[in-house]
């Protein structure tokens, strides 16, 4: 089999009339939603401790003490969940020459004139940005978070270093929330995207419009027969 440049081995044409394309396996979707749930819970519990006006959010978790206890534990869950997701997704998120053109013409993307842009593989530069931003920020958050995990690592690092860690942790948290908003917003604005993470499939039209090289590669591969 030729080396796949734009698609994962599991991606395939699921039906032909109308065309639907399988984009994410069940295990990847489960992995994504465990990560997403963790991130949302971390966001709520973290914001509660970030700003006094949001302290009431601790009520969701059963009070300040429980929030303080559970936040880092969810953080550990998120870290390992995202690690599994990372291992599945990193290859096709490596930068490619067409990403530069895509970013340079981001205005056309926003206006919905994607036909003026180069054909793309499984991910566009925006999706790649979200992926790498999440990856980097999660590492920053877990490292700084362990440094300020009072319950289990009270004296892991010096107090001056803990001050830096807590500042870095809150800045990284603000950044990851912005990336999260971008991610959710892009998924909603680009209609037809969400089914990729719910049912696992997208329509052929969606694939043609946004990720044509990905569709071409899968379609070409399927010539060998769907039983492969």
């Amino acid at each position, binding site marked *: 089999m030729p080396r796949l440049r734009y698609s994962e081995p599991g991606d395939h044409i699921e039906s032909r009339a109308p065309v639907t394309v399988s984009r994410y396996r069940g295990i990847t979707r489960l992995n994504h939603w465990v990560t997403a749930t963790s991130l949302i819970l971390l966001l709520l519990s973290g914001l509660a401790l970030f700003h006094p006006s949001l302290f009431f959010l601790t009520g969701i978790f059963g009070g300040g003490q429980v929030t303080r206890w559970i936040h880092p534990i969810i953080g550990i869950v998120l870290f390992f969940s995202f690690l599994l997701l990372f291992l599945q997704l990193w290859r096709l998120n490596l930068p490619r020459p067409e990403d530069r053109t895509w970013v340079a013409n981001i205005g056309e993307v926003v206006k919905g004139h994607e036909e003026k842009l180069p054909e793309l593989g499984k991910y566009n530069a925006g999706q790649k940005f979200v992926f790498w931003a999440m990856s980097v920020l999660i590492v920053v958050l877990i490292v700084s978070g362990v440094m300020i995990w009072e319950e289990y690592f009270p004296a892991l690092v010096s107090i001056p270093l803990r001050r830096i860690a*807590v500042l870095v942790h809150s800045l990284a948290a*603000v950044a990851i929330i912005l990336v999260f908003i971008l991610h959710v917003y892009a998924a909603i604005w*680009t*209609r037809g995207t969400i089914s990729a993470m719910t049912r696992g499939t997208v329509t*052929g039209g969606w694939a043609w419009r946004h990720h044509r090289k990905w569709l071409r590669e899968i379609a070409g591969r399927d010539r060998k027969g769907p039983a492969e």
Partner: protein
Amino acid sequence: MSDTAPQPTTAAANPPVQPIAPGFDARDVVRISATSNVPQPERQLTKLAKLIDVSKCIGCKACQSACIEWNDTMPAVEENVGVYENPHDLTPDMFTLMRFAEWENPATNELEWLIRKDGCMHCEDPGCLKACPAPGAIVQYSNGIVDFIHENCIGCGYCIKGCPFDIPRISRVDHTAYKCTLCSDRVAVGQGPACAKACPTEAIVFGTKEDMVAHAETRIEDLKSRGYENAGIYDPEGVGGTHVIYVLHHADKPSIYNDLPDNPRISPIVEGWKGVTKTAGLAVMGLAAIGATLHGLFARANQVEPEDEVEAERLVETEAPQPQPREDV
């Protein structure tokens, strides 16, 4: 209850025997953690202070014993590792600690045994309170006492990062932060702190801050007459002054007293974290969320057109003809 307890002006006074109402309470709070616009109290209590005259301390640890007894704590028995500090550090059950330093005075070539009673300094500008994310877990009264309200504490340890003196300790039992209260419960009923009352040499004295500063000045004058040219008061400006103040025989070098900070202040990192990061961060996140929602509601979405579907079908047809039986592979 008939009378209200007076503000204590000395640690020596004995308690009244009849029941009395507290001399100060929640109505006298001037600052509350994670709370802005605290209504200011109608009255201003006299500022209080505990003065620790390091030059008079004999290191007997009566203050520690009195502290343990009054606060009913039970510091764990530790190993003797050949130092005088006992316990080895402040703990959630030991709010004050005698720290011993052997210092060779370069001017005289003599060894000096410097003993400092460590504990909460009750800063006028408390870093712990500024760092605390839990509303009402740390309060400051108008007499200067900074107190932890345990039922509101969530045990996050932010106070530890905020404190310039490394004082708060988190209990492994109830997961809340502990430190010296300046015996706020005793002061409220007209008594001085337990440590001050127990001190046999009056190295620890208690009263109004004005009186304590005046007393410190007489002590400094005395020390200077005995050759301690650099004797002075430690009431650091960087934290707005403190309500626990020291008389040091070497006030030019506070750090020789077991790393007493030379110029304590709330770390600029903590100020930046609790200042611009908190405010600007919330604003940026809020704007992004609102902006995305509005754009989502009013802007045209990126729709897949019917011709995209047709193109896709054509592509799949040409690239991948209807699958034939396996022999065509």
